[in-house]
């Protein structure tokens, strides 16, 4: 104890660990959520996040009967009734405790198993000279503030909860590492104060834990060579190529139609003017953005106006639908970043149209789109169509042969790496092929059920992923792959397939203060599953983007 005071000791003994049960996994385990500062396992090989799979050589096993589980669970190491178990064993303080622990080999594959030794300890509480409870020996008064907003005890409780979450659960889904880092750094001042004014084992343990959490939140450091970022430039080149083709084709189209093009503004009044005199002619309308879309009962119109002249284009005509589909293909094949404003060439139609715009009825001239320049980056001639598709200028050149699939015996890590490469190169065809075209469901009795030839991939997964690798994600690395496990053994019924599954964790790498580091955002998907059927090639079964 640092300064004089009293110690209050419980008469029960525990490992001074906090654990979270993972009894349904194989092997059953207890995840270490927290190691109290005064635990004998402080300074041992045990770390927060490790999974305890055996105690004193006895494996953790989940009983068959639920009532047995209910009875056993609270008394396991790190659970709320652990002391009861040791009391029943007649154990005393200092009794040795050996934990068999497994942890992931990070980075790498699978798990490593090790043993770590400690001993049982009683919980102790400390009083200072003023007979006030303090946080550990030589520690601050539980209820004092020392100029900080909260009392020490509630601050400590919050900090432990925070550290538990970060160190034990890791970068779980919906985790924002940089945000958490910001919040985490707010604790620094008080931790240093504690270490300076109340030095002792508590302060030392807390500081070490805080630093471990900080290291975790800052993210693994990576070196990324400039050539690894060449794909970003490739995207820029593709954009440029298509934009050049767009401008040339746009000019050529206007030239070809020059004799039939009329000035759109000022236009002819569609009711009082001689609309028939311009039917069949073409107008070139200035770019139409989303603000110029008008919706009536979920039916959308593009509108263009100047002074009192209005033009309307129905977005549900075949030509307009081909235009919108072409824009989606552009986002998939070139870049997801395109300014969606449509400069359209429209053919004047014979009937006027009445729309309500900002609560006023407006008569306008209807046009049918025959060509569009989108975001000054993409041109579509809607007069050419094949099988319901109007290609955009330069689209054909993008249809380069896809890179080859990885070999059938590629490891899950290699398959993921091929998938990452396809994403960076914009190779949509290969990217799609690396997803499993089956999925495994679970019947009500828990048996797995295979659905072959099922693949449903949303365009938004590709587009969002492409947007990310061109934006704040500079690299993606596979950091961990589990050992394969069977989800169908092949013995469940005659001709049942043998399906294996692995878990994969990836790091998404961003750029922070001149360094490349792993980071996470709530929308990121860092955890993936791959499967293979009957020792066939591994394929990604998580239907998601990065």
């Amino acid at each position, binding site marked *: 104890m640092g300064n004089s005071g009293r110690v209050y000791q419980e008469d029960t003994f525990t490992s001074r660990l906090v654990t979270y049960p993972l009894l349904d996994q194989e092997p059953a385990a207890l995840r270490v959520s927290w190691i109290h500062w005064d635990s004998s396992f402080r300074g041992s090989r045990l770390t927060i996040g490790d999974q305890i799979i055996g105690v004193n050589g006895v494996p953790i096993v989940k009983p068959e009967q*639920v*009532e047995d589980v*209910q*009875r056993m669970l*609270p008394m396991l190491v790190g659970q*709320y*009734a652990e002391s*009861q178990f040791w009391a029943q064993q007649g154990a005393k303080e200092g009794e040795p405790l050996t934990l068999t622990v497994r942890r992931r080999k990070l980075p790498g594959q699978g798990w490593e198993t090790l043993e770590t030794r400690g001993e049982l300890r009683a919980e102790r509480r400390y009083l200072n000279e003023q007979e006030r409870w303090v946080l550990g020996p030589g520690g601050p008064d539980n209820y004092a503030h020392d100029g900080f907003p909260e009392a020490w005890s509630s601050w400590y409780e919050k900090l432990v909860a925070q550290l538990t979450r970060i160190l034990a659960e890791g970068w779980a889904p919906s985790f924002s590492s940089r945000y958490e880092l910001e919040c985490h750094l707010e604790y620094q001042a008080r931790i240093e104060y504690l270490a300076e004014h109340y030095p002792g084992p508590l302060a030392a343990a807390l500081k070490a834990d805080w630093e471990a959490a900080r290291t975790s939140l800052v993210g693994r450091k990576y070196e990324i060579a400039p050539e690894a970022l060449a794909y970003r430039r490739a995207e820029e080149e593709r954009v440029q190529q298509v934009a050049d083709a767009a401008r040339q084709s746009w000019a050529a189209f206007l030239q070809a139609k020059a004799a039939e093009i009329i000035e759109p503004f000022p236009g002819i009044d*569609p*009711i*009082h003017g001689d*609309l*028939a005199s311009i039917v069949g002619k073409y107008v070139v309308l200035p770019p139409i953005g989303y603000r110029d879309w008008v919706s*009536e*009962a*979920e*039916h959308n119109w593009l509108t263009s106006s100047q002074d009192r002249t209005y033009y309307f284009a129905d977005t549900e005509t075949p030509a307009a639908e081909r235009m919108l589909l072409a824009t989606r293909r552009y986002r998939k094949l070139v870049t997801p970043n395109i300014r969606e404003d449509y400069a359209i060439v429209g053919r004047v139609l*014979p*009937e*006027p*149209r*009445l729309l*309500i715009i900002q*609560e*006023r*009825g*407006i*008569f306008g001239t209807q046009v049918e789109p025959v060509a569009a320049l989108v975001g000054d980056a993409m041109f579509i001639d809607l007069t050419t169509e094949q099988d319901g598709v109007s290609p955009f200028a330069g689209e054909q050149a993008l249809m380069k042969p896809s890179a080859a699939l990885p070999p059938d015996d590629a490891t899950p890590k290699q398959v993921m790496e091929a998938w990452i490469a396809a994403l960076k190169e914009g190779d949509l065809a290969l990217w799609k092929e690396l997803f499993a075209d089956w999925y495994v469901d679970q019947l009500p009795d828990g048996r797995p059920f295979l659905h072959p030839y099922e693949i449903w991939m949303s365009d938004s997964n590709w587009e969002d992923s492409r947007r990310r690798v061109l934006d704040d994600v500079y690299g993606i690395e596979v950091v961990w792959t589990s050992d394969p496990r069977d989800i169908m053994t092949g013995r469940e019924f005659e001709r049942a397939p043998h399906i294996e599954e692995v878990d994969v964790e990836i790091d998404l790498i961003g750029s922070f203060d001149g360094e490349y580091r792993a980071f996470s955002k709530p929308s990121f998907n860092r955890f993936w599953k791959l499967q293979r059927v009957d020792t066939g090639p591994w394929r990604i079964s998580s239907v998601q983007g990065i």
Partner: protein
Amino acid sequence: MATYEGRKRELSEALTRIQPTIPIDEQLSFALRLDQYITARDEALVSMCALIADTGDAKRETDVRDKLARGRDAFKDTLGNALSSIQTPSLPGLVFHNMVVADEDRFWKSLEKLNLGALRDNLMLRKEILKAYTENLKEKWETMTMENRPLLEAEKLATNQVIAWLDKSTDESANKMQQAKKATVDLGEAIRGVQRDTTEYCADLARKFAEKYMADNEVDRKIAGEIWANLVRELRPGDWLRTKLSTVLIGEFKDLPKHVLEALKIYAVTVNYEYTQRAATYRDNIRKQTDGIFAVFSQTRRDTDAFIKNNGFDVAKKQYQDAIDTLNRWVTDLPTDGLKKDGKDFSDAVIKGLSQHMTAMEQIFNNFIKENEGRFFGPLGPNIQQALAGEREWDDYLSKLLGRGRGVEEKLREWRNDAHQILEIDLENMLQMLKPSLPDQQEEIEQEFQQVIESVRDEVMREARDRIAEVDKIAEELKQIISGDKMLQDFDRNRLLEALRR
């Protein structure tokens, strides 16, 4: 606050049954947490129902999900943790606990899958879409009628102006024709005067000759005849007559055909300009209506048909019925009688809440029907035809127009006949009247006079024939341009009505 008694009773009874077999601390823990759970659960369920019944236009899916999550979490925090403070739970206690956990878990998970908040939001959105579309149509109708009204007024104005111009021109032309007829009478008088003067002149001449040359019986009659002939040749009575005629009558002879022609030219001017212009204006306005307003009107009717098919009350009714069926199936699948009872009560409350949306939607839909049936869907109502084509008053206009047209036809025939009468018959007769009554020995004078009369007659009748030809031409042209049938055609409104009913 409504309470759901079924499960509470069921669990209380189950607890009572196992009470003798479980320790007192477990009894107390279960009893306390059961109370806490039921209170929280009821609160969650009631809140969910209140949100579902909310007929406002805010989305409630997230709120309903939150309330459900609270109910579910309340279970975890209460009954779910009932044994957490018990160091060594008893076997019956554990069994009871597991059973409750399994059943309540199923209850909350299956309730979550129903996604009642989304169901409610869908109905609400349908309602809002319908409301918005009703307003939309109202605005469109106002815009169309506002744009259409001046066109109808312009058509009426054009028609009225045609009638007014025709009336005015008919009066003017009639006046002119009267003047022509009066001129004919005056001319006849003047000619009779000339004839009298001519007869007197010849008689005077004969008398003077007779006095001079025939008083002495000694003058040879043959020589007297030669002297008379020389005298006639010297005096040139034909010149006298020509002078008389040119001084007095030639102008009037030539002016007469001009009067007649003018009567028809007034009409020709009116028709060629005023009628043609106004008929063109009228047709242009009809075109603006048929190709503009009515085209848009028909479009809106087609759009409304499609809207009703995709968003009408029947669609909402189906969604509502599907929701009822889903809730009924959910209740049936609940694992215990107590949960089924509470599920049924909850389901009834939810259906009641959803039905409020249906009631509101029905009102809005009925309002929509009331405002738009006969207008934007269903058979076209007569008031709509009246509002857009102004049918009723047009009968009156068109019958006036037809009357004028028939009148014009009649007048043209009359004037044409008058023109022929005046310029052919009357004029000819008047020219015949020029011939004087002369005794036989004035054959030489008669010959000269005849020559002059023939010459004047040729000239006048030539002029008259030209004028007659012009009159006939104008009359023919006018007949093509303006007649009762032609006016009906030019001012026809059937095209308008056909376009409206397209």
